Structures are given as structure tokens and as C-alpha cells.
């Protein structure tokens, strides 16, 4: 489903940072991959490269067989197939919850208002907040906002979902509700790439865990391998610091 081939990315401003160095990995259809690593390790950059919010300098990235770094690729088409959930939710504050979920359906997918509405209501039902359809996002708690953001991404019927630290901005008591939605999604067979610090989630849901440090993939493997006997010292150190 996703193939990343020797991707590098350097940020020049405000000072030069090699965010990604020769990163290669694959994500199969229906697989849940969790990327972990210390801050500044390039995990968010890698995720953002997958739908070209960041443009990789060198290498190739294929989503469902399409080379997204190719000049001729219509990136908007690719992005419509790749859902993304952000750390800070980024809901549209001038639109109601329902409008947040229907907007891209109407504008990008050209669905009829009725169809978009039905789809949106079904998804709000799924993430557990159909009763908030008519309110504006600033009336919702962080957990509710993030669930709306997930519904908004799912409304496009994406083939892949990317999660960029979806629970990092939440109060502790709200993390559970968002993780539950994500677990359900994984169970339904959605292909997911998740950047997170929730080790419990990684252990329980992930098919594979990727550990990154200083712009490189240091180690990857199944959760059991990863949490019980990691091979690299850097991984051991990181796990000892956070567990």
C-alpha cells in the first residue's frame, strides 16, 4: 500500500536540520504501523511526507502504486485517498461539526448534499457524537474534537489513515475515547500509520513498530520483539526512559 524508498529531507530554515536520511519502509494493506521515537527524530516529518505536506528532497514514495513525488501526479487526488489526523485537530472553526465532515465530500468528492449528510451522520454515530452535529467545534472537548477530525478524514473513504500524535494535545482522561475509535478502525482492517507516544496502543494494536532516531529508522519489528527484547542500544535507552 505504501512504499517509501530512500527518502531524505533537509530543512534549511531557521537552521539546517537533516530530518530524514535515506529512510525506506513499507506498509502493507490492512497493516497498522506505529512510529515512535524521541522528539526531533523525524517521525512526524516522515508521516507528513506520505501525503506531501512536506515535499521529500530525494527518493520515492508510492501510495497504492502512485509515485506521489512525480511532478505529473495530481496530489489532490492522492490526498483524497489518504486521511490525516493532526495533533491540534485543525477543525474548521467557522463550520459546524456536521459541516466540517461534509465540506470536503461536497467540494472534493462532489457528493450530493443529502449523500454527504447521511455519510457524515453515520460517521459521527461511529465516533460516538451524533448529538453534537449542529454545534461549532469550540463547544467540544479536545477528545470530541479529535473524534470529529477522525470522522472528517474517514468521510473521504480513504485507503490509508495517517495519525500525527493524535492524543498528545489531549487531557489524560480524554485519550481513551480517541484511542478506542482508532482501535475500532484498526479492527475493521484500515491501513494505518500512527505517530504516537502511547506505548499501550502500540503494544495492543500495532502489527509493526518502527523506531526512529535522528532522521533514520533504527529498528523495526513486531510489538513483542520491540518491547521485550529490542536489539539496539538506542531503542533500549528510549524505552527505559519512557516506560
Amino acid at each position, binding site marked *: 500500500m505504501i512504499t517509501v524508498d530512500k527518502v531524505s529531507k533537509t530543512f534549511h530554515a531557521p537552521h539546517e536540520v537533516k530530518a530524514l536520511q535515506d529512510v525506506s519502509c513499507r506498509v502493507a494493506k490492512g497493516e497498522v504501523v506505529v512510529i515512535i521515537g524521541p522528539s526531533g527524530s523525524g517521525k512526524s516529518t516522515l508521516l507528513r511526507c506520505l*501525503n506531501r*505536506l512536506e515535499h521529500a528532497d530525494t527518493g520515492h514514495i508510492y501510495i497504492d502504486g502512485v509515485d506521489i513525488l512525480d511532478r505529473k501526479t495530481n496530489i*489532490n*487526488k492522492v*490526498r*483524497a*485517498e*489518504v*486521511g*490525516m489526523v*493532526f495533533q*491540534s485537530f*485543525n*477543525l*474548521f*472553526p*467557522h463550520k459546524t461539526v456536521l459541516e466540517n465532515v461534509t*465540506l*470536503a465530500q461536497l*467540494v*472534493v468528492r462532489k457528493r450530493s448534499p443529502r449523500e454527504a449528510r447521511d455519510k457524515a451522520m453515520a460517521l459521527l454515530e461511529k465516533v460516538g457524537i451524533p448529538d453534537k452535529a449542529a*454545534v*461549532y467545534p*469550540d*463547544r467540544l472537548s479536545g477528545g470530541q474534537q479529535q473524534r470529529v*477530525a477522525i470522522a*472528517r*478524514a474517514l468521510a*473521504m473513504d480513504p485507503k490509508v489513515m495517517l495519525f500525527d500524535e493524535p492524543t498528545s494535545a489531549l487531557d489524560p482522561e480524554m485519550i481513551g475515547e480517541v484511542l478506542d475509535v482508532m482501535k475500532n478502525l484498526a479492527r475493521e482492517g484500515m491501513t494505518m500509520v500512527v505517530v504516537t507516544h502511547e506505548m499501550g496502543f502500540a503494544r495492543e494494536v500495532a502489527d509493526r513498530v518502527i523506531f526512529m532516531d535522528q532522521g533514520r529508522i533504527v529498528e523495526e519489528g513486531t510489538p513483542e520483539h520491540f518491547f521485550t527484547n529490542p536489539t539496539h542500544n538506542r531503542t533500549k535507552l528510549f524505552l527505559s526512559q519512557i516506560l
Partner: protein
Amino acid sequence: MARASQQMTRGAYAFWVMVFFVIVFGVVAALYYATRKVDYVWRWYRVPQYFLYKEKAEVRSEIQGRVQDVVRNGDNVLIRVTGDEQTAQYTVPAKDIRVDAGDTVYPGDVLGVFQRWKVGILMQGLWLTLKVSLISIMLGIVIGLIAGLARISSNPALKWSAVTYVEIIRGSPLLVQIFIWYFVLGTVINTLLAKNGMMQLPPLWYGVASLAFFCGAYVAEIVRAGIQSIHRGQMEAARSLGMSYPQAMRHVILPQALRRILPPLAGQFISLIKDSSLLGIIAVRELTKATREVVTTSLQPFELWFMCALLYLVLTFGLSMFVQYLERRTAVS
């Protein structure tokens, strides 16, 4: 919310409200005292005629002949005049009829006199100022929006064009711009139009164009700042859903930005209404030019300039209220 940093007891609050009214009263009283001190005869009663006045109108015969009959028809009177070769009919309000049936009239003879209300020159000026300002504001919004979007584009041709436009227009006097629009561009355009056998454009159009482009430069900067004040995440969220840049702008960024820039836009538009007073130099008779004309004929500068200022205040205050209404209406929940 507004006074979170400053708590005040009710009594203190009432006291300071009082202080405000005392200040207002004091200023008004001082102004009044000053007007008494000036060696000037105030004749406010002569001002209303420049808004609305009664005009005396005469109906005169155009032919030579005999008045055939004078027939009352409600409030009007129908006068028929029969000449040697032709006949004519005149309808005159019945108040003051100067002829009877059988009279002989010559061309130019007065058949009847009546009075009618006419709109005065100040009222006409006020209307023209309002019209010019509103059209310029609307065009200015369009120009400003385009220039503002070009300003943040990554395309150097668009970006640098926008920067050049904004810097030149903001950095030069409006007076000079109006001159250039009318006497340079206007001459060229009108000559071209004349060569192709088309109508000349009146000075008003060039005035509107100069004001619109002037206003547009400021609006462009306001729009740019408004767009840039919207969090980057909004654009990323919209784009990640598959929206194109224009779609994201239209549905996500601009609606939020426009709401945010309403207050500075209001200030800009108020400024524009007052700037329209410069159009008098290209013979557009807006409020200021109208006032100047009345002052030369009536020799009552004080009343008329006060009145002129007051009328501008009415326009700007109205606009200000309208924008505040928009702000309230577009406020989220």
C-alpha cells in the same frame, strides 16, 4: 470578559460614566462659547434650503392664439390654446392660473405659476459622495482581494506585481493619483474612445477608478495580514482532505480571514469616504465641492462647513454601525 483586568465597583462605574458626560458637555459648551466669541452672524436658518427648496415654476405659452377653454381636472387645470395653424394643451397645477377662456396669448406669456420641491445642491453632493464611496469600496474589495492573494503567492510575477502596486499606491499622494487618472489616463482613454466613435467617460468614472485602486492597495495589505493570521494547520487540514489551493482558500481560509479583518477594513472604508472629498479637483461635485460652491454664493462658510463635517460624520458613522452589525452576525456561536 472585557474588563477582566480591571475590576470596578458599581458606584465607581456610575461616577466615571458621569465624568464622561461632563466632559462631553464641557466640550460642547466651550465650542458654543467660541462661536459666540467669533465676530460672525450665524444664520443657521438659511442652511436647509441647500437640502430641499421650493422652486417657483412658470408655465408659458409656446404659440400665439386664443385660450379656448380652461378646464379643471382635480388639482390640475387643462388649458387649451388655439392658434391660426396649431393648437397646444398645457396642464398646470390649479393654484395660480393667470389666463381665462377667450384671452389672447403670445409666445412666452405666462399661463400659470406653481411651486415645486427641488433637491438642493448639498443633498446632491451627499448622494454623489455616498455613491462614489460605495462603488469604490466594492471595487476596492475586489482589487484588494486579488492583490492580497497575489501578494502571498509563490509566483514571483504575481507577488512582485502586487508588492509594486501596493508600495506605489500607498506611497504616493491620492491627489496626484487622481490627477494622473483623469488628466493622463483619462485623456488617452477618451481619445481612443472618440476615435472609435464611442461615448466619452465622465470624470466621475476616473474618480471612482482612482479611489478604488487607492483603497485596493490598503485592502490588499489587510487581506494579506488576515490570511497569514489564520493558523497554518487550517490550510494543511484542508489540503490533506484533497482540496486544491483555491478550494481551501475559498471554503476554509478566506471565510475565517474576512471575519477577522472586518474591523481594520471598516477603518479603511471610513478613510475612503473622507478621501472622496478630493474628487472635487476633477469637477466631480461631491459633498465637499458642493459645500465650497455654496459657500462662494452664500458667504456663510461657518454654518456650511460645520454642516459638511456633520454629513460626513453621518456617512462614516452609518458605515461603522453596519460593519459592527456584520461582525456580530458573523461571530461564531
